[in-house]
């Protein structure tokens, strides 16, 4: 801990000492004789040097340049023209130059940018911002284009290129590129490449959109269309007030292949503006969107549209991650500093993805800065993380990120939530069922002893590494590793007091370790501008161990020690080796084909042993899965786009072939309104089983479907909706209906007792279910105040014969309202999120009764309500936060300090209830989720 603090204070000091204007990096030279207005001169320089100028139109509108240059470096040209006009310039971090008269102009210009002042002009090689914001400049440039290059008729041609982050050189996947004033558009693939066929003219302008980045434009000309176009985007600053999470549906973007249904995308770079419980959390941020439940504090996994987290496929750089959270679910397992792009498909997803019933979360890791060395990190009350990115040479980059928790107050608060020992009455005379969940064995009866309790080491960490090598323009190799582990140790050692024995101790070991190690090797190749492939070999392993045992050592007066051991040990292992090859082929202007093959070998084992000797459960299953898929994206009409696809999988445990037809489509009614729908069939072969009793064993484990006791589950999705996008807001509505078949539920019952020997009865129950709902999203996308309100009306029902028919699924939530509010004021961002959700269903005891057994000993039982027929009180909470950007005078953001309060009004939301029988009376106690929890996060980066 001390080391971490030291490191951070050092990096703090270093970054603060580096207050200076950045050097101007350009080798461009200017030649010619100019008698033009200053603004035109700046445009000319901007085009040559790839620099963007930001200036107050009023300040320089009357300045005329009359000068001659011969192979003069841009730096000299700028010095000369500015000096002679009593102007200065300030170079920004991302090669943006502010033109100022005096130092105070810099903050003034930035303020103008903040409020979107129409006098603030931008210029660079691919010109300006939005048309509306810059009417004069656009008019001027357009005029110039018309004058200089009279339109000539050309045959439609193909362009291809790449979208990157201008600062780091990182490729940007899923960016949307649209040819202005046409309905031609496309999106970049996972490596940032795009191809547009049938571009009508070489004077067209491309509009580029990417969440979290400034919208940009790129003007085509007869030269640049001949080679690969590289478009560099700039991270949006707060002045543009882009929203962090954008429901990226078909919307106004009239794409031919970008109109997607039920897709959410997130920009990790801007996550710090939302309140957090200790960490910027990628998966938790999705929980603020409609259709993804926000009331499960103990799971950062996604409950999407009535599905469970194991029905959500989580891919990190192509490999499946089985353990998506840390610390019993409070934090997602992904370090936001190592993540570039996260896309969630809430349903009806493409046939490219499979193996899960509900949804897909596709996470793409950062490749690392290809331009310069950078180091940064965050520290909060929970954890510290550090990342390093650097170009190794001009062809390869490296990114390393490490995060580790420390046992600070926040960590302990959450840890203790899961490890409270409840005193319980156990069956004495007249006693009944052992109430409550009990603590770990040995949990009771400690009172009165002077305890020496050791503090065990308990922590989580994760590590990301990615190496990318691009030998040429066509090939790209990347190797990505992720490892995350939790070591949760609640062990206690209690020394026996001397009046009991001459010495001895009770050691209660309660240790849970779980984690995931995954790695993928990816080869991307651009065979031709129209054919692109991505081939991936990966492995992913998951492990979960639970050791809950007691060791009692008693020493007699002679010092002889007697040792007694008992306890339970659980072990769950999963190994997954996978290969896949995904291909994209732009067949024709409006037809694109996606196809691929995949194969994986999975090996799952689960052991449950008693006293280290007898294995009560020892399961071991191996399965091979293989298959292929194809999907075609085409537009039969101008406004209609359809994506039919099919996926077929062979699963060797059942020996059957599973076909999954999928179909999705969008119809653009007009500029603003898009209708969309999708449907499909989905199969799942690997299930995570949740144990009922959350304190007395590992909470969940993975199993493979075997076709008999655990069948292969399947689902049908039917989704329809529309989105309406106006200038400043977006409305998105989607309804869904999902049927689920062959769901598995598991219960484990311990039979007998120590006297008779313990055996475990395992019950797998099979049933079906359905979920339905409608989601509304109203989002304000521009201005100082941004945010959204989302509302979901939903129902999730299961039907298991073993539970007496239909009942509300445990994750069923009728109403869920979320309000996310962000307000930008100078360097501050204030945010408040409020979540309201109907209480979760639960099964409760209704009455009790006592009968005597034959021998006359009373036994008390609880009668239980129908499965999940009761409802917990509503869940609601308010989180607030304030974020202050640390900005150097050259306005580079080098970090931020965030203050957040989770559950600001300290609402006692009930997590579950427990029951115990004391003096024949049934005592119900509530176990609550986290109360008011403050947090501070400091983030810093070197560059």
């Amino acid at each position, binding site marked *: 801990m001390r080391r971490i603090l030291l490191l951070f204070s050092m990096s703090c000091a270093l970054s603060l000492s580096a207050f200076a204007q950045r050097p101007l990096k350009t080798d461009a030279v200017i030649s010619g004789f100019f008698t033009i207005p200053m603004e035109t001169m700046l445009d000319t320089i901007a085009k040559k040097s790839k620099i963007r100028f930001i200036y107050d139109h009023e300040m320089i509108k009357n300045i005329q340049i009359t000068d001659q240059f011969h192979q003069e470096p841009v730096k000299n040209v700028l010095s000369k023209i500015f000096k002679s006009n009593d102007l200065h310039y300030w170079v920004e971090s991302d090669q943006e130059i502010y033109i100022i008269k005096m130092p105070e102009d810099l903050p003034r210009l930035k303020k103008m940018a903040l409020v979107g002042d129409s006098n603030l002009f931008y210029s660079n090689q691919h010109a300006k911002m939005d048309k509306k914001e810059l009417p004069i400049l656009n008019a001027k440039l357009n005029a110039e284009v018309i004058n200089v290059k009279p339109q000539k008729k050309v045959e439609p041609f193909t362009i291809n290129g790449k979208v990157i982050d201008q600062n780091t050189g990182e490729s940007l996947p899923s960016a949307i590129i649209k040819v202005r004033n046409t309905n031609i558009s496309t999106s970049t693939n996972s490596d940032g490449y795009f191809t547009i066929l049938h571009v009508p003219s070489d004077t067209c302008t491309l509009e580029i959109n990417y969440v979290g980045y400034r919208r940009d434009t790129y003007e085509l000309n007869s030269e640049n269309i001949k080679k690969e176009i590289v478009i560099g985007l700039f991270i949006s600053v707060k002045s543009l007030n882009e929203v962090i999470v954008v429901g990226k549906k078909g919307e106004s973007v009239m794409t031919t292949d970008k109109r997607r249904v039920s897709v959410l995308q997130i920009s990790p770079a801007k996550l710090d503006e939302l309140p957090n419980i200790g960490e910027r959390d990628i998966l938790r941020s999705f929980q603020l969107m409609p259709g993804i439940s926000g009331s499960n504090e103990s799971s950062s996994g996604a409950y999407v549209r009535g599905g469970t987290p194991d029905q959500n496929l989580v891919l990190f750089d192509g490999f499946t991650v089985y353990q998506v959270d840390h610390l019993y679910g409070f934090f997602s397992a992904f370090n936001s500093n190592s993540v570039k792009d996260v896309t969630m498909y809430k349903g009806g997803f493409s046939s490219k993805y499979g193996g899960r019933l509900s949804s897909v979360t596709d996470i793409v890791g950062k490749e690392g800065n290809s331009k310069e060395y950078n180091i940064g990190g965050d520290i909060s009350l929970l954890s510290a993380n550090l990342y390093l990115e650097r170009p190794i040479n001009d062809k390869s980059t490296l990114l390393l990120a490490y995060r580790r928790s420390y046992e600070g107050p926040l960590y302990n608060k959450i840890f203790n939530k899961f490890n409270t020992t409840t005193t319980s009455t156990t*069956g004495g*005379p007249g006693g009944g*069922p*052992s*109430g*409550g*969940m*009990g603590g770990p064995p040995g949990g009771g009866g400690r009172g009165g002893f002077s305890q020496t309790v050791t503090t065990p080491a308990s922590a989580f960490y994760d590590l990301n590494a990615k190496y990318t090598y691009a030998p040429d323009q066509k090939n790209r190799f990347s190797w990505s590793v992720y490892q995350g582990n939790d070591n949760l140790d609640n062990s206690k050692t209690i020394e026996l007091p001397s009046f*009991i*024995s*001459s010495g001895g101790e009770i050691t209660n070991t309660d240790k849970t370790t779980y984690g995931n190690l995954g790695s993928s090797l990816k080869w991307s190749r651009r065979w031709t501008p129209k054919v692109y492939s991505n081939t991936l070999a990966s492995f992913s392993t998951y492990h979960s161990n639970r050791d809950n045992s007691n060791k009692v050592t008693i020493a*007699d007066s002679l010092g*002889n020690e*007697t040792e007694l051991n008992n306890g339970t040990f659980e072990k769950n292992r999963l190994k997954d080796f996978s290969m896949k090859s995904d291909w994209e082929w732009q067949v024709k202007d409006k037809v694109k084909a996606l196809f691929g093959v995949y194969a994986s070998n999975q090996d799952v084992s689960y052991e449950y042993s008693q006293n280290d000797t007898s294995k009560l459960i020892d399961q071991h299953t191996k399965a091979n899965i293989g298959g292929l898929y194809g999907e075609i994206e085409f537009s039969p009409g101008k406004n209609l786009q359809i994506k039919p696809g099919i996926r077929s999988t062979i699963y060797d445990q059942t020996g059957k072939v599973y076909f999954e037809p999928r179909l999705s489509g969008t119809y653009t*009614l*007009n500029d*603003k309104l898009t209708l969309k729908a999708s449907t499909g069939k989905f199969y799942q072969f690997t299930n995570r089983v949740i144990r*009922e*009793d*959350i304190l007395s064993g590992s909470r969940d484990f993975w199993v493979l479907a075997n076709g008999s006791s655990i069948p292969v589950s399947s689902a049908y999705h039917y989704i329809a909706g*529309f989105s*309406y996008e106006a200038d400043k807001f977006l409305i998105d*509505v989607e*309804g869904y209906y999902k049927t689920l078949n062959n769901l598995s539920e598991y*219960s484990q019952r311990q*039979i*007998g007792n120590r*006297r*008779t020997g313990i055996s475990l009865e395992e019950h797998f129950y099979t049933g079906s279910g359905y979920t339905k709902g*409608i989601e509304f999203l109203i989002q304000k996308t521009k201005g100082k105040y941004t945010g959204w309100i989302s509302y979901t*009306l939903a*129902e999730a029902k299961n039907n298991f014969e073993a539970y007496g028919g239909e009942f509300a699924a445990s994750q069923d939530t009728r109403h869920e309202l979320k309000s996310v509010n962000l307000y930008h004021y100078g360097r501050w961002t204030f945010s408040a999120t409020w979540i309201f959700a109907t209480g979760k269903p*639960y*099964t*409760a*005891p*209704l*009455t*009790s*009764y*006592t*009968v*005597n*057994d*034959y*021998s006359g*000993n*009373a*036994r008390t*039982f*609880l*009668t*239980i*309500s129908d499965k999940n027929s009761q409802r917990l009180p509503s869940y609601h909470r308010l989180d607030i936060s304030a974020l202050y950007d640390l900005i150097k005078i050259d306005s580079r953001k080098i970090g931020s300090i965030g203050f957040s309060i989770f559950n600001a009004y300290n609402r006692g939301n009930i997590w*579950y*209830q427990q*029951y115990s029988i004391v003096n*024949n*009376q*049934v005592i119900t106690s509530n176990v609550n989720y986290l109360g008011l929890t403050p947090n501070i996060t400091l983030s810093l980066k070197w560059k």
Partner: protein
Amino acid sequence: MEINKNLKYLFTLIFIVIVYCFSSCQKDNAAADYARPVVEAYLIPGQALQVKVYYQKYLEDTISYGFPITGLALKVSDGTSNVSLTETKSGIYTYADANFIKDSKTYALSFSYLDKTISAQTTIPSKPANFKASSTQQEVPAMTVGSTPTTFIPVTYSWANATSDYYMLSIQNIETYPSSISRNTRLKNEVLVGQVSTYNTEAMNFSYAGNHKVLLFHINKEYNDALKNIGGNSLNLTNPSTNVINGLGIFTGLRADTLDLFVYQ
């Protein structure tokens, strides 16, 4: 405004869909069935038939047993004759003829309560066969702290169980003035041994020293299921097993064999 018109249509459509989707009635989760009576009856050949009927208890009740349900008309049929039980005490219904319960016969209980017929059925299991003990004496070493305890040597009971039936052992102290050897105060310790054919005694089976009777009961599965302990929290609650239709509790036949055991410390 075409857009507005479109929107209006859409919202209307959505409204209709919502109303349709969510208008299905909620199942009324009737104030749980507090009305179900609790039945307790152990049918043993040669003993008079006795059936207790109680109310359930509310969760906050502190009474040991539910209040008795009085004034019921209980009938038990053995297939040929149908006898009526008499209420001898509040909630305790008996049939005095000790010969009514016979080996291997099936008995059916029925009575009506709050417009419902409460019924249960059981068959008397066969008498345990070949019940033997490895010893007629059991030493229970004193619990000592600080010195190595003397090893407890169990007595092994065995019986014939070729068909994996369920068995229960009831270890009963029969001394008039028993002397305690443990903190436990039960005079009768009952062990559901399950579908086994041997049992080794443990120290905790014995609370008192002196003469004991060890009764091996051949029981029905319903007894085993109804009386085994279950744990419960809101995530792990299961209804207790019962063979009483429209009721709770147990109506079951048992058949015992007995051995003597002397316990000393």
